[in-house]
C-alpha cells in the first residue's frame, strides 16, 4: 500500500483534491476556461511528443500492432458491455444509455497522463507507443454508442459526425505530436524539452486543480445522477480496467503498458465524446453523462484506479 500513498501524496493528485475541496466549500476559485483549454493542448502535445521520441529511440515492435488492435476492440466493445447495466440497473432510456455508454468506451487523456507521470516517478515506465493506443481508443466508442441509441443513417449530422470522429482535435494533436516526436527523435527534442518535459508535472498540477473544481461542481449541480448511476460510475472503471489489464497481459505487453491499457479501458471521455453526443444525440442529458464521467469516474481513477491497475498488472505480470 506504499504505492497508494505515493500516488495520493504526489503533487498532481493533491492539487486535484484541493480543487475538489475548494468546490465543495463553494469557494469562488476558478481557472478560466481558455487557460484550461491551453493547458490541455499543452498536455496532449507533450504526451504525444514524449511517446513519439520514445518510439524513435526504442523502435516499433510487433506489440504496437496488437496493442492498437486491442485498443480498437476495447473502445468499440465496452459500450455494448456497459449498456445493459445502464438500461436495466440504471433505468436509462435508449438514448441516454447510448450516450453514457459511448463515454465509457472512449478514454480520458488526463487520466492516462496522470498515470504515466505518477508511474514514471517510481520507475514504472509505460511504453511510448501507448500514446498511439490512447488516440486510437478516443473515437470508435462514439459509433458504438450511436448504434446502441439506434440512431440510424440518413441523419442530419452524419457527415459532420464522421469528421468529428476522424479528425477530432485531440486525436489529431496526439497523433500529430506523436509523429513529430518520431521524426525529430531525441536530438530534435532537446531544444523543446525544457517546455515539454521539465514543465510537464507542474502544468499537470494546475490542470488537475481545475479538474477537481469542475468535477466536484458537476456533481453538486447535477439533478439526474441517482445513487444507482453513481454506483455504476464506480463499478464500470473497475470492471473495464480489469479487462484492459487482462487484455494487455494476454497480448504480451510489458507490465506498465498492461496497467496503462487498464487505465485506458477504465477511463471515460469528457472531451471528445460529450461534444459528439451534443451534436448527434442532443436529447440525451448532458448533465448526466458529464456527472458520471467527470464527476465520479475521473476522480475514482485518479485516486484509486491508478494504483489499483498497477497492482493488478504486477500481480498478473508475476504469474508464470
Amino acid at each position, binding site marked *: 500500500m506504499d504505492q497508494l500513498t505515493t500516488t495520493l501524496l504526489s503533487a498532481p493528485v493533491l492539487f486535484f483534491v484541493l480543487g475538489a475541496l475548494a468546490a465543495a466549500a463553494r469557494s469562488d476559485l*476558478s481557472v478560466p*476556461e481558455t487557460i*484550461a*483549454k491551453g493547458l*490541455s493542448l499543452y498536455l496532449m502535445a507533450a504526451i504525444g511528443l514524449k511517446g513519439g521520441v520514445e518510439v524513435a529511440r526504442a523502435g516499433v515492435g510487433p506489440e504496437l500492432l496488437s496493442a492498437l488492435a486491442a485498443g480498437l476492440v476495447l473502445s468499440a466493445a465496452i459500450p455494448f458491455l456497459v449498456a445493459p447495466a445502464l438500461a436495466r440497473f440504471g433505468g436509462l432510456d435508449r438514448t441516454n444509455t447510448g450516450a453514457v455508454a459511448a463515454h465509457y468506451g472512449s478514454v480520458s487523456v488526463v487520466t492516462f497522463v496522470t498515470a504515466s507521470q505518477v508511474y514514471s516517478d517510481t520507475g514504472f515506465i509505460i511504453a511510448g507507443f501507448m500514446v498511439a493506443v490512447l488516440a486510437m481508443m478516443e473515437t470508435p466508442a462514439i459509433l458504438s454508442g450511436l448504434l446502441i441509441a439506434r440512431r440510424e443513417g440518413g441523419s*442530419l*449530422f452524419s457527415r*459532420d459526425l464522421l469528421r468529428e470522429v476522424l479528425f477530432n482535435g485531440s486525436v489529431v494533436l496526439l497523433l500529430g505530436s506523436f509523429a513529430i516526436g518520431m521524426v525529430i527523435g531525441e536530438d530534435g527534442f532537446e531544444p523543446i524539452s525544457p517546455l515539454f518535459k521539465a514543465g510537464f508535472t507542474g502544468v499537470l498540477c494546475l490542470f488537475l486543480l481545475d479538474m477537481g473544481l*469542475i468535477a466536484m*461542481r458537476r456533481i453538486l*449541480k*447535477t*439533478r439526474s445522477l441517482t445513487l444507482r448511476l453513481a454506483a455504476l460510475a464506480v463499478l464500470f472503471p473497475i470492471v473495464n480496467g480489469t479487462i484492459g489489464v487482462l487484455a494487455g497481459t494476454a497480448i504480451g505487453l510489458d507490465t506498465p503498458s498492461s496497467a496503462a491499457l487498464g487505465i485506458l479501458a477504465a477511463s471515460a471521455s*469528457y*472531451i*471528445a465524446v*460529450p*461534444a459528439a*453526443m*451534443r*451534436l448527434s444525440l*442532443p*436529447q440525451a*442529458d*448532458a*448533465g448526466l453523462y*458529464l456527472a458520471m464521467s467527470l464527476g465520479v469516474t475521473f476522480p475514482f481513477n485518479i485516486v484509486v484506479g491508478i494504483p489499483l491497475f498497477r497492482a493488478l498488472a504486477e500481480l498478473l505480470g508475476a504469474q508464470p
Partner: protein
Amino acid sequence: MIEMTRRERIEVLVDAPLAPKLAEIALASGITGHTLIRTESGRGRDGEWSEDLLSGATAKYIFLTIANSESASRFVQAIEPLLESHGLIVLRSPVDVVRPERF
C-alpha cells in the same frame, strides 16, 4: 432624418456545436448574413449550464439574424424540427434598419 425600414430580428439560442448547421439553414432560407453572440451561462428546464467545461459541449451562442419577413418565416419553419430535439429557443421581433436592401 435617415429613413429606416422595418425588418425582422430573429434570435436563436443554440448549442455551440449546432451553430454552423443553423448558418446553413439560414443561407438556404435566403438569409444573407448572421452574427453569433457569446453567452456565459444560463438556466433552463435541464438545470444550469456554463462555459466552464473543457469539452465546449455545453456552450451556447445566440444566433442573430436580420431578415425580411418572408425569409424570416422560411427560416423559422426550417428550424422547426430542431426546436424540441435540440432545446432551441427562438425569438422574433420587429426592428428598423438602415440600408434595407441588404437584408
